[in-house]
């Protein structure tokens, strides 16, 4: 696959347009949000994966892979994941949504906590999983973790 891409890349030079017209590939649909915010209280800010600025979070704001959420003193917010888990981020916390691609052989995580406290709830652990990563450990909840 990589070879094919590489060949295509070398063939497609700016100065030498292809002799045969190439049909424009349909733009891939944007990935669905990984989670959304709810029950905001206090100062909660979000930094997009492709952005440099922290913006004020809003109710029902969608979150995507590699987005970050920060809470100020006295603030809190809930992250509701599409997979079913809910993570309440406490004050003075910094969390990030996990990147989309986990390394080969490693199970993916949902959220990374870099600072502060989160409280996680998984309503249907027989069907759902929730994983929280930190610099020191990975915490996994839900049935599948037993035999993944």
């Amino acid at each position: 696959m990589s070879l094919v891409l590489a060949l295509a890349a070398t063939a497609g030079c700016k100065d030498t347009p292809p002799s045969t017209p190439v049909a424009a590939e349909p733009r891939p649909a944007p990935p669905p949000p990984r989670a959304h915010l709810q029950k905001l209280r206090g100062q909660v800010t979000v930094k997009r994966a492709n952005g440099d600025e922290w913006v004020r979070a809003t109710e029902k704001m969608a979150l995507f892979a590699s987005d970050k959420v920060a809470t100020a003193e006295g603030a809190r917010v809930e992250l509701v994941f599409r997979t079913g888990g809910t993570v309440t981020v406490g004050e003075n916390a910094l969390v990030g949504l996990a990147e989309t691609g986990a390394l080969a052989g490693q199970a993916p995580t949902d959220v990374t906590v870099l600072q502060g406290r989160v409280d996680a709830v998984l309503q249907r652990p027989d069907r759902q999983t929730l994983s929280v990563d930190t610099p020191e450990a990975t915490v996994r909840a839900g049935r599948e973790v037993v035999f993944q």
Partner: protein
Amino acid sequence: MSALSLLVLVVHLGAPPVGAPPPTMEVVVARGESLAEVAVRTLGDASAASELRALNRLPSGEVRAGTRLKLPGAARARAQSALNAVRAAITQRDAGSSAEAHVRLKGAERLFLSARYDEAAKAADAAWALVSDASAPVHFSVSVDSDAGVTEVASHGGMPVRVEGQGTTRSVSPGQKIRVARGRAPPPTPPEPLPAPHPLTPVRAALLRRPPAQGGGLEPVLVKWVAVPGADGYAVEVTSERGGTWTVDAASAQTALPPLPAGRYRWRVWALKGQERGKPGPTRTFTLEEEPLELDVNGATWQ
């Protein structure tokens, strides 16, 4: 072919395929070393010798010095983790509801000892599903102190969560807390306290009548309680309201008290496991009276 595409091809061919098993580790048998000793040296457990034998398809348990033995990979740790999970879940359940799970666990353990780790993990999970309350919501908290380099994980409800780090996985049950330092493996969770045995008989505030016993006191009272999974013994404490306390050790979930004089008593039971003593069960009372003598007057010869 351009230089770029050639480079990509080389890199592509040099990279391990996605999802490929990790490189197999091997060990060389030292002079005079038995398979059990190799198992202890490499896997920390002499009973893992059967795994090494199965994994390396050895015709017998004897190995010659210099033999290269293949060691199990990550699948063994996963299977071991699954087995530990079901063992913990069975311990938390009473014997009646976990009988089938126990049978399945034994099957999973046999697969494990045969080095069939993936099958063992699945079998263990099937057993685990029988005894785990997977329908209850899981609630846990994670606190990160980035300055101290410490993560604290606490389980508050539902099935246990699993804490992974440095290749080690720990199970944290509701009520338990674990602190993981940066660069360190999660420490073992403290053992769960033995649950309190529930008293069965004598029932609450029972009135018991016993004939006099030879040697003093009244004939013994039999006390029973619900067995505690994992307990290897019990301690029964009986206290008289007139003063005096008796402690009786029991191997099973019932025991006869020593001959007691008539009176009112309180009793309670602890489960024991090695040196550990669990929480005491609720206190029950009973009143012990001397059984009235039955006079057989029918056979009397006097008039």
